[in-house]
């Protein structure tokens, strides 16, 4: 029994106690720091150490940035202005800004051209990157962009890219036309195309064999390696000499035989059409059109390209070419047909087994030995082919990973719906496989973009080549170092980080809840 009553106690609380603020050590910044920075003796030591390092870094770096000189004509003038203080010499960026962006040989009054091409490229990429939010019709601009971009950067007559575009359209029309042919006319066409293709191939092989013989003679002098190389070329040459007629007949016959199915005839006819148009009609037609209505920009040869522009050109072109090529290679490697599978496997494994820098040296140096002295096979084109081959092999393996991750049931479901191979791949397999492969593809793309700076070793003046050569080795800016490399790091970071952010956004967009 209790004697305690309401009347006997002095105070009874009739309202709830207002919530007290948490103790100072359990709230706000203090709590956050205690939990995140000082949660144990080990983390405390690490925190103190980190703060010390950051402080040291800032102690050095801040005056360097803050005292930075932005207006000087040479490193000596810069030092005079600094007068012994620690400070960066950012004036080099101002002085050589154009060179860093466009290379030192691009005509100065044409800088607007690559700039415009870059802006248009962003515009052209939008419909592809954000296909869900933009009307599909904008893709037409994307398809036209390569021609616009080429004309703006390389210049020359507008009619050249226009005629190439026209040739592609005409080829597509021929493709459609042949596809729709009846069996009879198609067989006649297959006969004609078969004879032409067979004869053409035989002729090319014959020429190739002669050329190989010529090469074997030109490399034969020298040591053991040269002798071995000469022997290999001789064997290849003899082999081609023996094979060129049988190969021609075989290919011609194969094309004729395929009249029933139609696919091969169609493709070969289209290839023929575009080859004839580009090889024989491009020059005269665009020349004639240009003499009637001259629309010209000052032509800029490839070797005058440089700076960050060159990195962007190589990066964009190679990534956009190597993704489709990589898809084809990945599908080819999964193919049931031994020949196609074999070619794809050998290509991928060979390219992956060779360092990119070796391929670049081959593109720059070795090809010059093999090509006749006066032939001028565009250097940028050579480099683009090499980098594209390299990255497409990697992308093929990434996509193969995506394909392997798909359950077998997906393939079987596609088959059971009665879809043919193309339809199944296009509608069911690839959308899923590509979604899985996105992080890998982006990884390769970012790596590839940064690898474009490797062209500086074959004396092309991309941004790193510009820094290492003409800027660091000039009398004015002799041995300047951190300022220029930091700038290069910055511009690369901006692009690579944007790509990475986009890919993460895209992954979230395509998330369909399987995981």
């Amino acid at each position, binding site marked *: 029994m209790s004697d305690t009553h309401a009347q006997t106690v002095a105070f009874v609380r009739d309202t709830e106690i207002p919530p007290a603020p948490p103790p100072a050590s359990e709230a706000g910044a203090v709590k956050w720091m205690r939990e995140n920075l000082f949660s144990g003796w080990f983390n405390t030591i690490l925190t103190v150490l980190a703060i010390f390092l950051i402080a040291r870094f800032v102690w050095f770096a801040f005056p360097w940035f803050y005292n930075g000189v932005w207006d000087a004509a040479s490193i000596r003038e810069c030092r005079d202005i600094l007068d012994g203080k620690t400070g960066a010499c950012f004036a080099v960026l101002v002085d050589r800004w154009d060179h860093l962006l466009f290379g030192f040989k691009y005509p100065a009054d044409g800088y607007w051209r690559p700039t415009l091409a870059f802006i248009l490229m962003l515009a052209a990429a939008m419909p592809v990157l954000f296909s869900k939010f933009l009307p599909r019709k904008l893709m037409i601009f994307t398809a036209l962009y390569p021609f616009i971009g080429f004309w703006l950067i390389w210049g020359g007559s507008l009619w050249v890219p226009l005629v190439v575009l026209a040739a592609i359209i005409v080829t597509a029309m021929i493709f459609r036309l042949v596809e729709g042919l009846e069996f009879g006319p198609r067989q006649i066409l297959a006969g004609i195309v078969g004879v032409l293709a067979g004869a053409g191939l035989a002729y090319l092989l014959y020429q190739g064999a002669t050329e190989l013989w010529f090469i074997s003679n030109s490399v034969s002098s020298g040591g053991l390696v040269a002798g071995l190389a000469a022997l290999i070329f001789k064997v290849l040459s003899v082999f081609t000499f023996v094979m060129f007629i049988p190969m021609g007949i075989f290919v011609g016959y194969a094309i004729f035989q395929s009249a029933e199915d139609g696919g091969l005839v169609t493709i070969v006819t289209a290839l023929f059409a575009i080859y004839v148009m580009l090889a024989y009609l491009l020059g005269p037609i665009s020349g004639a059109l240009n003499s009637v209505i001259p629309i010209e920009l000052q032509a800029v040869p490839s070797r005058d390209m440089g700076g960050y522009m060159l990195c962007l050109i190589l990066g964009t072109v190679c990534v956009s070419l190597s993704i489709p090529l990589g898809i084809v290679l990945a599908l080819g490697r999964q193919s049931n047909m031994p020949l196609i599978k074999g070619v794809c496997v050998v290509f991928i494994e060979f390219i992956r087994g060779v360092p990119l820098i070796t391929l670049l040296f081959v593109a720059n140096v070795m090809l010059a030995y093999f090509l006749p002295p006066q032939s001028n096979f565009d250097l940028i084109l050579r480099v683009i082919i090499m980098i594209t081959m390299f990255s497409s092999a990697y992308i093929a393996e990434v996509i193969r990973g995506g394909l392997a991750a798909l359950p077998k049931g997906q393939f079987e479901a596609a088959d059971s719906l009665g879809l043919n191979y193309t339809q199944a791949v296009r509608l069911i397999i690839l959308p899923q496989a590509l979604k899985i492969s996105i992080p890998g593809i982006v990884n390769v793309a970012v790596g590839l973009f940064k690898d474009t700076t490797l062209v500086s070793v074959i004396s092309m003046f991309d941004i790193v080549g510009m820094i290492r050569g003409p800027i660091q080795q000039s009398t*004015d800016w002799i041995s300047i170092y951190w300022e220029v490399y930091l700038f290069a790091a910055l511009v690369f970071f901006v692009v690579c980080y944007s790509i990475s952010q986009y890919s993460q956004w895209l992954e979230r967009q395509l998330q369909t809840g399987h995981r």
Partner: protein
Amino acid sequence: MKKTVFLGALTVAGLAASAAAAGTLDEVKARGKMNCGVTTGVPGFAEPDANGVWQGFDVAVCRAVAAAVLGDGNAVEFVPTTGKTRFTALASGEIDMLARNTTWTFSRDVDLKFEFTGVNYYDGQGFMVPKDLGVSSATELDGATVCIQTGTTTELNLADYFRSNNISYEPVPIETGAEAVQQYNAGACDVYTTDASALAAQRANFEDPSAHVILPEIVSKEPLGPLVRHGDNEWGDIVRWTLNAMITAEELGVTSVNLDEMAAGSNNPEINRLLGTEGDLGGMLGLSATWAKDALAVAGNYGEVFEKNIGENTPIGLARGLNAQWTNGGLIYSPPFR
């Protein structure tokens, strides 16, 4: 697959379209431009300026040859080459001549099948050390770490020198001069070794040049000069005698200032032969009579080119030294124009 075949076929077709090889002189004349291989940049010797125009001591040789052949010192396509690509570029015919700080050595001349057409700069390999190190001779460098550019003759000379003096060292291989200086200044190596001219140029641009000394030992001979391919002696002669014309002009006192006056005729028969008012030296080379005058009109004689690009009044600040005329105790000497 089909596409590969197609591209392959295109390549083969390209291969087949080989041109008949003519003499280099005819090719250059037909092209209207001479392709000259230069460095990707060596201060004072070859560097594009802020306007993208190539300047420098080696560049002047290219321009002089182009002027002698084509009458225009700007009719040059400068092809930048690295230490690794320079010889293949010349051997494959991508460039007509190479003027790129290249040391004349036996194996390059004989085994690589090039023809050195003279020497435009006598260099030698030296060592630079910080003054604090307290070293006054290269023989005291036992156990030192040495910054050295890879792929150059300096690398081999260094090994030879240290072996013959029976001292040990640790090499720090480096790709470019700028990197080497950065490493050296950061203390990554005790010694920086390269051609003495480059050492002097780099040191002159240090924040505190007096804190570094260049040791007295010059451990190698590095005669630098322009070179051409074996097998076209007419072209080699043109490059050789254009360089000789620049050297002779200095010896005879023909400068860019008095060139026109001299070309009008003088009392010195050799000047007259050089500038084409007497004899037919140009015709013998397959060039115009005023070839040497055209070459000299671009940048002047050897001495003027030296002073303008790397001389003591430039930031590079090199003394003539071995590169003075033979009449002044140097090695620069041209055979007579007769």
